[in-house]
């Protein structure tokens, strides 16, 4: 995701007798042409994203194993999540991916105002996602569903004590042994959504930087690599959520 920085030309020029042919300022000298430079940057970005796939993959694997072992605990623990918030957040994130894709298009066809607008919208939608996530986290904290911090089994050993959830799902009480494993569900929930949120925070910080650069016209003069590769990152974060949402929120929503 390297941004265009000027390369000192002095020594390079003296090596190439005949000087260098006219080329855009953002083309670095170790590349043959703009096309090759963009390909190399895109390839590197994809390699980075694959390491991210492996990183999240470990957590998804842990999730699948524990879900298979302690399914009843996972069902009742996931009933604690609010489907409306989750669906809304999915829609917000998909819309932000759409505005980001439109931003890349604006950069490619050199529409500066459009690019700034798209980046600002993506920025706002990203913040909206984190805002909704905060509301959800707050509810978990209030109900003592944060693993390791005065974790409470009450909602699972005695579902009737949690009338809001009970009236919808009529969960049967779990034995203490199984109820304890809801803590594993919430550990995974916080680890996975927390890592996802961290990626969002990093993305939003970079977006803020990009909005300033875009206003100065940095991305609408033909050099779109930075915007394009940031787009790849943002869409990747979207894909992680596309899998997190059904796995964490929609385990077993039909009334038993």
């Amino acid at each position, binding site marked *: 995701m390297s941004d265009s920085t000027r390369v000192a030309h002095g020594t390079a020029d003296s090596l190439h007798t005949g000087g260098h042919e006219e080329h855009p300022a953002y083309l670095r000298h170790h590349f043959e042409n703009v096309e090759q430079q963009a*390909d190399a940057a895109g390839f590197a970005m994809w390699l980075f994203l694959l390491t991210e796939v492996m990183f999240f993959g470990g957590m998804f694997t842990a999730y699948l*194993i524990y879900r298979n072992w302690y399914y009843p605990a996972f069902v009742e623990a996931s009933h604690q999540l609010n489907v409306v918030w989750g669906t809304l957040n999915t829609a917000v994130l998909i819309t932000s991916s759409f505005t980001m894709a439109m931003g890349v298009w604006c950069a490619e066809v050199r529409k500066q105002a459009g690019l700034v607008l798209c980046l600002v919208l993506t920025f706002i939608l990203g913040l909206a996602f984190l805002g909704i996530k905060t509301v959800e986290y707050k509810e978990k904290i209030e109900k003592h569903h944060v693993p390791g911090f005065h974790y409470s089994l009450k909602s699972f050993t005695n579902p009737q004590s949690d009338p809001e959830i009970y009236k919808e799902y009529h969960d049967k009480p779990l034995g203490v042994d199984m109820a304890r494993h809801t803590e594993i569900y919430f550990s995974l929930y916080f680890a996975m959504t927390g890592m996802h949120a961290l990626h969002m925070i990093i993305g939003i910080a970079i977006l803020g930087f990009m909005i300033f650069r875009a206003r100065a016209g940095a991305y609408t003069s033909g050099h779109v690599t930075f915007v394009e590769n940031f787009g790849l990152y943002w869409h990747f974060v979207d894909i992680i959520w596309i899998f997190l949402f059904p796995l964490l929120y929609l385990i077993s929503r039909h009334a038993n």
Partner: protein
Amino acid sequence: MTDQHEMEESQHHVVSPMIYIIIGGSLLVLTGLTVFASFLELGIFNPIVALAIACVKAVLVVLFFMHVKYSSKLTKLTVFCGLFTFIALIGMTLMDYFSRAWGRW
């Protein structure tokens, strides 16, 4: 300068906004569909349907939002290799966990 610009245009495919609108719309529809499906009683197929819809959404994002459909063979190969390695690793791990104790209870 115009020559060079045309050359860039011919090699670098610019995806039209119409495609982004269609893909964004289908992603939202699929999100609705997966929520709807989760409230149906499908037994073992509930998680399968949920994951299948998630995979379709991910493929749409990768192919169109991330431009892989219009990218070089190198990019396509990189993405494919990554997914293959990921599926192999996750598949072997799960097979081990789920089959190790077979026949012992």
